[in-house]
């Protein structure tokens, strides 16, 4: 039995409880083991981070990728906004993304001669989250005091697009040039469906509330991410866009850094790698027949990670989220909206939340994201009254505790979960890097199922996913 992988540490944040209240991690139980992705899928890519080289590998890869990028449009004295998003800081502790942001600044300054380079870091629904990251990773200092978090309620600007007027955050676009720095972690497949993944921040973390509401309320579950393309394709954004740089992610770490003046070209490459790198583990998660889920990571409930996959995607792992033939995932805001007053879906084709989830032990996860859907649809035990109080104070989670029970400590919660669920299979969403912390019983099941899943993805699913996105599967052979 492999030892569990060390989980990601709790983080000091206004959106979570003080780390002193996280007294025990789920991976500490003797029945827990770990499964490495490379052992499940031998074709798992090699990574540059984490590696023996440390964080310098990211800087080196970024500098190399940026060598092929044209920056001649940026003149000395021009203002440049390096646009970032909170997501990147949740990957591998955040350091690789912070290093990419630092490198991009350094290379722009060196190549163009301009010093007027600002960091504009967008957020999800926790408006001060990137302010916290800017401080903790020293980005304010690196950007010479020109770093700030921006939020979707900040002053906006209208952007004329081919579908009508949408709205961006003014501070994102208040420079001569913008540089889009992001990552390819597939993350919210339930929302963007791996369609234009690389473009998404233009409709989300760089966008005003009107645009984000368009995404989640006006366009439908498979058209939603078009808001991002509409904004990016606008004359206004095109007139300011200089280039893009991405951490190319896989479930086991940073594969490389990709950069381009053509975001669509980079998007096509990352569409392929996203389907390829994440498709197998997500499909394998769909093979889990029953389990207790542990939430144990410094992020809101849907965004805690296991094997590089977020819990929101595991909640939908009973269907193929990459398959665009399916309209509604088990969890997405459109699905949530379509549950009627009787607690049943308004439409027949709404799949239920993954029935393999028998119990959820919420040992450590943040507020700051509407998460009541999860406690309503899966029996949930929250560890510690401090966490329950935090959720009850959170305007986005006023109903979360209506559907959950509280255990004073993790031991009580686990005992209850084992007894009531009747399963000894446990999967822990604790950000373990390179693999996943699970119970021995679940580890065995994952090993048994992985070869058949691998073959099915290679031969059947991946070609289908790519065809659905306008990419010829032959081109990747």
């Amino acid at each position, binding site marked *: 039995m492999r030892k569990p992988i060390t989980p990601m540490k709790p983080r000091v944040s206004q959106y979570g409880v003080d780390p002193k209240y996280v007294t025990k991690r789920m991976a500490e139980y003797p029945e827990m083991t770990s499964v490495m992705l490379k052992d499940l899928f031998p074709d798992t890519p090699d990574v540059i981070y984490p590696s023996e080289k440390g964080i310098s590998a990211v800087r080196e890869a970024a500098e190399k990728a940026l060598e092929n990028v044209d920056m001649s449009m940026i003149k000395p004295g021009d203002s440049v906004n390096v646009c970032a998003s909170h997501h990147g800081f949740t990957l591998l502790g955040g350091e690789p993304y912070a290093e990419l942001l630092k490198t991009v600044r350094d290379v722009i300054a060196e190549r163009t001669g301009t010093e007027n380079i600002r960091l504009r870091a967008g957020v999800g629904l926790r408006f001060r989250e990137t302010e916290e990251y800017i401080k903790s990773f020293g980005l304010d200092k690196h950007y010479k005091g020109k770093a700030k978090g921006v939020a979707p309620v900040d002053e906006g600007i209208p952007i004329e697009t081919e579908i009508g007027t949408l709205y961006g955050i003014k501070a994102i676009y208040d420079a001569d040039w913008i540089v889009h720095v992001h990552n390819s972690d597939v993350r919210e497949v339930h929302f963007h469906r791996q369609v234009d993944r690389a473009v998404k921040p233009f409709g989300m973390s760089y966008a005003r509330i009107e645009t984000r509401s368009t995404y989640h309320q006006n366009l439908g579950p498979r*058209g939603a991410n078009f808001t991002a393309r509409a904004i990016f394709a606008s004359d206004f954004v095109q007139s300011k866009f200089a280039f893009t740089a991405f951490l190319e992610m896989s479930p086991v770490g940073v594969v490389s850094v990709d950069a381009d003046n053509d975001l669509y070209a980079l998007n096509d490459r990352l569409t392929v790698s996203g389907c390829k790198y994440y498709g197998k583990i997500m499909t394998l998660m769909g093979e889990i027949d029953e389990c207790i889920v542990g939430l144990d990571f410094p992020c809101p409930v849907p965004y805690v990670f296991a094997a590089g996959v977020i819990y929101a995607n595991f909640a939908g792992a009973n269907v193929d989220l990459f398959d665009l033939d399916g309209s509604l995932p088990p969890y997405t805001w459109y699905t949530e909206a379509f549950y009627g007053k009787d607690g049943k879906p308004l439409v027949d084709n709404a799949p239920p939340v993954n029935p393999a989830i028998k119990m959820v032990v919420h040992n450590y996860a943040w507020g700051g994201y509407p998460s009541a859907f999860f406690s309503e649809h899966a029996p949930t035990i929250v560890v510690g009254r401090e966490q329950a109080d935090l959720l009850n104070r959170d305007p986005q989670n006023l109903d979360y505790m209506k559907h959950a029970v509280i255990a004073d400590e993790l031991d009580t919660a686990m005992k209850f979960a084992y007894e009531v669920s009747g399963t000894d299979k446990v999967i822990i969403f604790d950000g373990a890097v390179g693999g996943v912390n699970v119970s021995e019983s679940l580890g065995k099941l994952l090993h048994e199922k992985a070869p058949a899943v691998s073959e099915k993805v290679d031969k059947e699913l991946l070609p289908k996913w790519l065809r659905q996105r306008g990419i010829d599967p032959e081109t990747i052979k």
Partner: protein
Amino acid sequence: MRIVTMLAEVDEQKCIGCKICQKVCPTLAIEIVNKVSKIDAEKCRGCGNCNQRCPEDAVSMVKRETPVKVFVDPETVDRKKIEEMCEKARMNPEQIVCYCTATRAEEVAAAIIKGADTPEKISLETGVRTGCKVECIQPVLRLLEAAGIQPERPDGYQWYGRTPTIWDIPEEVKHKYSKRGFYFDEDIKLLDEVAKIKKTGKEEQ
């Protein structure tokens, strides 16, 4: 429905009167008096926008002594009017429009029928736009439009305007991107189906 448990409180020593809190308040509960922010406790819905955007960290969220319930009961207005408004806005009356408060389209429609003619008044009376403060502005504007109301924008950043829906996307745009994974017509079919379903569901107990 929204149970308001929190209240914004200003530290007058820290407040610089920059007006940002006023500009982001979805219920217009903030006024600047003598260069200091003043919160109207009656109007505050505890959303925390002021707390989250104050550049001086001058606003705290404190627990209310007595929680306040805001709710417009759809049963108290003509059902037919609610259904007509929702149909025009292409929504099902039972559809959830605010994911934080689980407010349904019918409650927003009922508030409009009862006289709430701006997003701010709707937020005040139903609690929508006071959770995440991000995702539910469009259904509110669509329902107001369906009622024939063009609300005036407040003097701030609360909202800018209604944006396109999937039904507004031009055919040539749909065609241009049809091979890129955007399933516009299929999603229109789904959303139309949802809007048309008749339910007389009772709230789950």
